[in-house]
């Protein structure tokens, strides 16, 4: 006999299991739906290695959260002050 539990919404996604029972004993618990890997557990250490190795390369543009002109001026000032 196989019983499927409800899909449970939790902090990192949805989880749903089925339980297989034979002769009064639970013989298996199967994960039939889980996107837990998309949650916090998904932080991949190998990405850090790639990211760090690439860090030293030259680039033509810098992408970042939209900066204000004030922040840009401060950054420019600080960069210029390091030149002198």
């Amino acid at each position, binding site marked *: 006999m196989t019983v499927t539990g409800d899909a449970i919404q939790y902090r990192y996604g949805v989880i749903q299991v089925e339980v297989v029972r034979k002769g009064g004993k639970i013989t298996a618990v199967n994960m039939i739906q889980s996107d837990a890997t998309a949650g916090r557990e998904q932080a991949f250490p190998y990405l850090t290695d790639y990211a760090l190795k690439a860090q030293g390369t030259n680039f033509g543009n810098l*992408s970042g959260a939209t*900066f204000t002109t004030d922040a840009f001026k401060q950054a420019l000032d600080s960069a210029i002050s390091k030149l002198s």
Partner: protein
Amino acid sequence: MAEFNHLEQCMGTVFRFAGRTALDQSDFDDAILRACAILHASDEIFSLYKPDSPLSRLARGETSVAECPAIVEDIWQACEAWEQVTDGWFKAFTPQHTFDPSGLVKTWAAREAARALEGAGITDFSVNAGGDVWLADGLSQGVNWSVGVSKPITIASPDSGVLTVFDLSGTAMRAVATSGSAERGDHIWNPKAPDAIQDELVQVTVISDDLLRADVWATAAFAEGPLAVERLNREPNLEALFVFHDGRLAGTDGLVPLFAKPN
């Protein structure tokens, strides 16, 4: 070929057009002026910081979309389409129900400005719209095709710097957009739960074939949080890097080949 590097302040941020051109100085100046006029015209229409802009009047209920310049309707429809595509994670209405498409307008205007430059015969260039980067098809090979990503710290901080570098050469990717709370605080709200604070991520960078698409998905993914990885895995020509508060990283399945090779 003459090199150029033009900075234009608009929409409270800085736009940079950089590249090489064979145009003579006066034709080039004309082209840049016309491209930047597109940015400023968009700002005049869409700024919510200018009390008399059509969008501010719309927000106060003093006018209707039909009475606004036609572009307002276009942007309105684009926002609705993106809201559907992102399953509601990109939403151009604030929790107070004010139409605020400012995020999309910035990259939309940058894309139009880039098209204007291409129309004028400038094809070897990149655009940086306040941190969102677009590379023209005709951009010279080499370091230009590498795009750095800021650490999730304000660029005004002495600790700011480069988190990593992506190399888009030889790929279909043309755009890198980053959303996060480093520069403007929590300006991205959760459209599905306006009071909830997305506190796991500090930054999402999206690499894609189109600037607007990259920008919208970066905003949507930042609002949704880490679960957006799976959603983005289903999008063609789109990869993303997620940065958690504690500095750990997550990414889409095809991200790794895009990291620049150390030189």
